[in-house]
């Protein structure tokens, strides 16, 4: 049966109606707020290499202690590591230290190689890792130019004293999966939910020292925040002439910005 004129008319009216409704809804909705883009700045001129951030990160994120059988094999796990670069020898020796969390690249090589979608970029730019999905192929650890990903070569172990102090907001990872820094996304989620319950807008101050490393840093060298907000502390520091990123020429576009007066020798 051919559609009658009435049928056609009905369809057209319905379509126009739907379109009008859609437009109405779009107008009624608030002007789309720009998504957050989490980033970090690390001021090397402030950093004293005390490693408080390394310890804080380990305890916040239930990162296991590799123990005497794994450490000699270089299988320790550090979501936040302190890299040391030594030049020359005594008395002219010079050491430089670099706290290194995951760079949460905007163009992350690790995400591209994951065959199972266990690692991905979240809506807010965090490079996440769902270990329950991870098959332990370690393509990502190889793809990461910064070596910021760690494979669990053994089941996690903690000293007896620490067993009852694990953070319930972070899942522990079993043997055979890859893990990495998440910018303490559990803290971001908690503060966002809390603000929603209290009915208030989040400000830069809520994030500045949110991750465990930033919270702990006694020199206030580590700052965290929204890089899409031009007025945030991280955006401001990111515009500093002292700012640089690691291996910038790779095109990974890290969201961790380092600050240093002297030229950094890589």
């Amino acid at each position, binding site marked *: 049966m051919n559609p009658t004129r009435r049928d056609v008319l009905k369809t057209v009216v319905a379509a126009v109606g739907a379109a009008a409704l859609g437009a109405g809804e779009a107008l009624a909705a608030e002007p789309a707020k720009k998504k957050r883009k989490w980033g970090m700045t690390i001021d090397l001129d402030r950093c004293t290499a005390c490693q408080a951030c390394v310890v804080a990160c380990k305890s916040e994120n239930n990162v296991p202690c590799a123990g005497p059988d794994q450490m000699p094999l270089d299988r320790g796990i550090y979501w936040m590591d302190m890299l040391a670069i030594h030049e020359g020898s005594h008395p002219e020796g010079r050491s430089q230290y670099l706290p290194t969390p995951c760079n949460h690249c905007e163009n992350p090589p690790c995400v591209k190689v994951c065959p199972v979608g266990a690692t991905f970029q979240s809506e807010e730019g965090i490079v996440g890792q*769902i270990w329950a999905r991870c098959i332990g192929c370690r393509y990502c650890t190889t793809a990461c130019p910064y070596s910021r990903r760690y494979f669990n070569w053994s089941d996690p172990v903690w000293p007896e004293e620490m067993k009852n102090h694990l953070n319930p907001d972070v899942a522990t990872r079993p043997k055979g999966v890859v893990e990495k820094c998440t910018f303490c*996304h559990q803290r971001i989620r908690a503060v966002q*939910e809390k603000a929603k319950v209290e009915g208030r807008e989040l400000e830069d101050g809520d994030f500045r020292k949110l991750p465990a490393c930033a919270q702990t840093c006694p020199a206030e060298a580590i700052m965290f925040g929204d890089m899409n907000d031009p007025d945030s502390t991280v955006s401001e520091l990111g515009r500093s002439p002292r700012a640089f990123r690691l291996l910038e020429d790779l095109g990974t576009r890290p969201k961790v910005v380092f600050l240093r007066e002297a030229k950094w020798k890589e």
Partner: protein
Amino acid sequence: MSTSNPRILVAAGIAALVVLVGGGVFAYSRYKALPDPVTQPVLFNHKIHMDEKLGLTCDSCHKGVNEGPHATIPAVATCIKLCHTDPQGTSPEEPKLREAAAKGNAIPWIQVNKLPGHVYFSHVQHVKFAKMDCKECHGEMKDRTEPVSQTQTSRLDMDTCIDCHQEKGVSTDCLRCHK
């Protein structure tokens, strides 16, 4: 050499058996993480407490549903202070409450509705913001006379979460629900 070597056949048979039994045990252990039914230290009766005379609502006791991720269960001291100083009924379960309170012990409730350790779920998002009724996920708790058992929790899987989130236009970002 003949291909129908009986030893190979037997070996293949054993291997198949191992895979089958192993798979079965694995699947069983996954779905039987908790004994079924769970025996709670005190057999709490929801129906009695939801009697209209008392004027209680779910969030009178599970206060956390309006505040944060966990629904929470009231402390024994709260039960005693607000109601159970004197016996309220004839149930043999009730004295256990005062016993625990007198010793200053918490009642070691076993959490039945429990997601795996790598999942983050938040009550406040669903109860306060999405305005969902408890029964959409927990069934008719107000008619329950005995504690919930494991079997009812199987609905809270990732597909259920994702289907509704997609339908309602809520985020399905892995990091929203995983930790």
